[in-house]
């Protein structure tokens, strides 16, 4: 389908107006919301992610593409909701209590949305209970926590311990990220994975949810 192929191309160029226009055109051509999402927007963002991983493009290119994707997604959302089409999975993310750093976590959220996941972003300075309560209320699959300070990293363990206390630890996969973290630390506190950037977080979430 030419429109979807063009959508892919303009996603890569981060051309908001064209992506918006082509999404509207694809809707008018009755391509189907799910098909436009999967074969147009998500496929475009997947190509962008691959090019970034291969160092062919840079972070600003990825974020310009993400803006274009969001413009298209805004047009599709009402149709997806109307047809009751579920997203690929649900992820609750936030920066842990005591920490006000927002950017890394936001970038992860942008990349996850770009990959077709529903993201509930709790923002920064999020209390341990809030992560779990939101995950329960929304039926999330994954909880993602971010910390940029060595002094706030231990809050991640608090969330995991609280999930164990509540007997819900195995209801969710828990991923962690942030500059001072490591694979070793993630293992030590009982998280399921450490993600070093947004693209890696997408791969990680996909593997947990067995999404191809």
């Amino acid at each position, binding site marked *: 389908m030419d429109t979807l192929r063009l959508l892919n191309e303009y996603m890569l160029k981060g051309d908001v107006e064209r992506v918006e226009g082509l999404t509207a055109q694809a809707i008018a051509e009755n391509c189907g919301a799910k098909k436009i999402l999967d074969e147009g927007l998500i496929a475009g963002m997947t190509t962008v992610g691959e090019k970034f991983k291969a160092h062919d493009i840079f*972070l*600003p290119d990825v*974020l310009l593409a993400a803006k274009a994707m969001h413009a298209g997604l805004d047009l599709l959302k009402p149709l997806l909701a109307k047809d009751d089409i579920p997203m690929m999975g649900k992820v609750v993310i936030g920066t842990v209590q005591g920490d006000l750093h927002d950017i890394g976590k936001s970038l992860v959220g942008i990349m996850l949305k770009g990959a077709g996941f529903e993201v509930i972003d709790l923002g920064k300075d999020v209390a341990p209970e809030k992560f779990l309560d939101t995950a329960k209320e929304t039926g999330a699959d994954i909880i993602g926590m971010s910390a940029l300070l060595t002094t706030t990293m231990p809050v991640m363990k608090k969330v995991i311990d609280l999930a164990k206390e509540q007997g819900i630890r195995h209801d969710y996969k828990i991923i962690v990220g942030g500059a001072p973290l490591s694979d070793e630390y993630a293992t030590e506190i009982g998280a399921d994975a450490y993600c070093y950037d947004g693209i890696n977080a997408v791969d990680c979430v996909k593997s947990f949810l067995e999404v191809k």
Partner: protein
Amino acid sequence: MKKALKFPVEKVTPSVKAILKAQGVSDSSMADDRILRLAEKTLSVYEKLARPIGIIRDISKTDFKDLFYGEGNNEGDAPLGSIYESSRHLALFAVTIGNQICSEIPALFGANDFAAGSMLDSTASEGTEKTAEALELFYRESLSRKDEYNPSIGIMRFSPGYCGWHISAQKKLFEFLQPAEIGIELNDSYLMTPLKSVSGVIVAGKKEIFVFDDLFYFCADCDNRSCRDRIKALMESNSF
């Protein structure tokens, strides 16, 4: 001496090259026109919103000993321990580029302007470092005026949270320096607000005292390693 200083924005504006490097574009010639345009646009936002300001206060070695110890969480072999003991002058400092620019970053993200938000974040971080550099230069010039600076003297900045100096030392640093006077606050996690702030100690002494190898075990966790370039530049410099 205790002094608060405002800096002209143009004196602490980072270069496009530095911003792009912070965005992962190590070679700015590889960036296409739209990224270069975005960087230029971001710089104009920075110049409009940044309010660079700093505060500096001399501190004696005796007072600094307690401050450096902080809450007792430092690594035993933190290099600053021996560096400050051999120093000639010490001054605590804090700088920020203000709240306005820090509020603009999430606003851009909220408007789906992710690339602009991310680039402004990098620009603000670079600008904060430039402000710290400007304050360090002010300190050097003030030592020069008192004939206490010559080509054999080196000056370097150190911040809690780096090089084995535990971040909890921020508490005593803030008690002594009182940077709330210029709008910088500290939370219970030792995080400064505005987020784009830097604090620490400026050390002046014989250049040789600053030389150390990055072989401490905590160096392995450091993703910065700017100490290497700073020590190299210090040893090669002959400014007077």
